[in-house]
């Protein structure tokens, strides 16, 4: 693959790449370069991803049989809790924003760095410290409350290291807030001349919307965790029913963050998908403006639906109805995006390289996950399937089928830009397809098991559910194998991969106009933007008319 000279190309920078600007440990640990910080985050979240994966592998292993013969009850509870805590706060929430967001946001808007580079480095240290705190909780014996820390079990009855885990998440929350503040300020203040809001790539809009959610939702989680810690440690009654405390208030505060948190996890993924689909279908995105409104709409409406997690907790029927209605409404902008991605594919010249395979996988799996969300928004159905594997399957379809697929799409799409190397695409395609099959094998049986009544978080279950559990656990090991492939061939590419030119995919976007990898300063000269994003096909261009006019028989 070679570079393509596109009209209006920026000069190739002559400075060493950001990877070569200093080889000492402190040049990495004290860096303020957003690209290096992105890599620091990438290493951190990959570490936590594999830890969370090991935990759930043990869980799935135990679930091969209906009796709890592999793990004790307590150990089982601690493992699924650890899986949830680590995956949510130390992988999913930071994944795309802190890695690709950090690396690409300044590049995509034509800036030299984020608005507050030292704050950026500090936010990485915060997640590291939070991570160590949570790891301590694990090593000291674990936590068994579930990632949701519901009171009064977490505050009054659990005998595990709740405080350490809650503290770890609390600290990580400030990493989130700092990142959000940084990205919002960067987007407002550092766009290159000519880069107006509606010329921004959708990935930038996605990161911006995500940052709004991070800033507004995370503080509520922070306080909630403080209250759990204080009640548990100092016995100050807040949620204790003996004193008139209301455990449901904990749930209100917890889910006020945790529902928007899932939009923190999915919005950046949507941004990645928009970048990849346009490039590999060689088409401008269909309905750019509505894609923007949809993302902002998801971010805002996502704050109005949290009570759908509490339909069976004792929430008043009146509030439940309000939340149910709003939960149906929030599906609309997501659906608009799925329609627009599909329309973007229409009459495209579709290539099936690895990033596109992951993005197409996202489309299908996110749609299934989203549709099952509608079932859950309906109170009568939710009453039956809540706290069953139906819910587990629903959120894994979106978070794993959706966000993790998009993470891999982005990883493969931007790998040449970040590392300057090309990976072997056949291996990547194989891993993508294996992942798709492994994923569905793991999680589709869970829909059925849950619908039939298998509760979540149980490791002893009635034998009639065993067939679904065996399918699911087998699928999990296929999925695990698929996850182990990318580190192998991507690692291989770092040493033996062909060096990438500045634009191996022939993509549009400012990040592709600079070298691969970029220099410390990002651009040799500050870019001046004259056109909108996704200039893949001109306005009014109809491929069939074009080919017919050239005497093509097709």
């Amino acid at each position, binding site marked *: 693959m070679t570079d393509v000279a596109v009209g209006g190309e920026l000069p190739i920078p002559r400075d060493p790449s950001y990877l070569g600007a200093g080889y000492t440990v402190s040049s990495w640990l004290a860096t303020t370069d957003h690209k290096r910080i992105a890599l620091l985050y990438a290493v951190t979240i990959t570490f936590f991803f594999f830890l969370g994966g090991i935990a759930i592998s043990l869980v799935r292993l135990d679930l091969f049989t209906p009796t709890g013969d592999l793990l004790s009850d307590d150990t089982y509870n601690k493992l699924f809790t650890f899986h949830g805590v680590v995956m949510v706060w130390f992988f999913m929430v930071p994944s795309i924003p802190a890695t690709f967001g950090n690396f690409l946001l300044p590049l995509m808007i034509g800036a030299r760095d984020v608005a507050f580079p030292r704050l950026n480095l500090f936010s990485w240290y915060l997640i590291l410290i939070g991570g160590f705190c949570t790891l301590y909780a694990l090593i000291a014996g674990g936590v068994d409350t579930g990632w949701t820390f519901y009171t009064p079990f977490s505050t009054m009855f659990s005998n595990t290291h709740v405080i350490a885990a809650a503290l770890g998440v609390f600290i990580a929350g400030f990493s989130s807030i700092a990142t959000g503040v940084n990205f919002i300020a960067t987007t407002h203040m550092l766009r290159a001349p000519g880069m107006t809001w509606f010329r921004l790539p959708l990935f930038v809009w996605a990161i911006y919307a995500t940052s709004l959610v991070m800033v507004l939702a995370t*503080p509520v989680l922070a306080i909630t965790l403080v209250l759990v810690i204080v009640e548990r440690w100092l016995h100050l009654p807040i949620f204790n029913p003996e004193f*008139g405390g*209301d455990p449901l208030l904990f749930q209100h505060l917890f889910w006020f963050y945790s529902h928007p948190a899932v939009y923190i996890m999915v919005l950046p993924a949507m941004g990645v998908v928009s970048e990849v689909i346009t490039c590999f279908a060689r088409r401008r995105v269909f309905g750019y403006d509505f894609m923007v409104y949809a993302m902002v709409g998801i971010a805002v409406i996502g704050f109005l639906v949290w009570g759908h997690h509490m339909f069976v907790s004792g929430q008043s029927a009146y509030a439940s109805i309000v939340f149910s209605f709003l939960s149906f409404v929030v599906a609309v902008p997501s659906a608009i995006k799925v329609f627009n991605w599909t329309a973007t594919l229409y009459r495209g010249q579709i290539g099936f390289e690895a990033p596109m395979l992951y993005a197409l996988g996202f489309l299908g799996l996110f749609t299934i996950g989203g549709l099952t969300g509608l079932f859950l928004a309906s109170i009568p159905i939710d009453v039956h399937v809540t706290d069953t594997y139906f819910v587990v399957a629903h959120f894994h379809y979106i978070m794993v089928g959706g966000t993790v697929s998009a993470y891999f799409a982005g990883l493969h799409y931007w790998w040449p830009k970040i590392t300057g190397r090309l990976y072997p695409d056949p291996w990547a395609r194989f891993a993508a397809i294996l992942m798709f099959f492994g994923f569905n094998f793991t999680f589709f049986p869970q829909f059925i098991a849950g619908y039939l009544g298998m509760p979540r978080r149980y490791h002893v279950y009635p034998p009639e559910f065993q067939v679904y559990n065996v399918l699911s656990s087998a699928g999990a090991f296929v999925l695990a194998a698929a996850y182990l492939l990318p580190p192998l061939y991507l690692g291989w590419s770092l040493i033996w991969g062909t060096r990438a030119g500045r634009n191996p995919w022939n993509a549009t976007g400012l990040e592709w106009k600079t070298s691969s990898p970029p220099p410390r300063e990002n651009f040799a000269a500050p870019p001046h933007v004259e056109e909108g994003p996704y200039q893949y096909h001109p306005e009014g261009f109809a491929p069939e008319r074009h080919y017919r006019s050239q005497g093509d028989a097709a």
Partner: protein
Amino acid sequence: MSAPTKVLRAPWKELARQREGATFGIWVFLASELLFFGSLLLLYTAYRVANPEVFIAAGRETDLWYGTVNTAALMTSSLTMAVAAQAAEADMRRLTIWCLGATVLLGLMFLVFKGFEYAEDIEKNLVPGVNFALQEPAAQIFFALYWIMTAIHAIHLTVGLGLVGRLAIFGALRRIQLRDNPEVEVTALYWHLVDVIWIILYPLIYLMGRS
């Protein structure tokens, strides 16, 4: 004496833009702080709606004088902080440093009085637990919220003292430049937030049940 550290830093190309950016950034952070404290206020509101008479009776036990003097002190520190920030912009270095110092002193005064107040509260058995002074269970929730809200506020205030003190000391030593420095505006806005939170807490904690 070495020259003060440069104020303009990458990726900003002009100081005016950097200051705009810093001001914008701190306001975004303040919005998040509003949600942080707001969650506690929500809990207070919900529990008060559920237990109005108990909250009023419990509120009577807080020390109105300490609360009021502290409110006055903090509002005065907001005055000195505002003057310091505007003096810095007008390049009045001595006035800036004196006012920053006064802000720190008033803030310390707040903490000292708070310390005495806490000691008195402990003596009066107003710490939720076995020997709690009031009978009604919900009164313990009022006081749990009292301790948590005022402690978290005090922590924020202490951080603020660090920020203001740093400007005062390094500014006096000429290690940092105070004029046109975005850090001054950022510190000032943070300090005012600490005051705003206390202004909201004051009636909720100290003015209940006084009639």
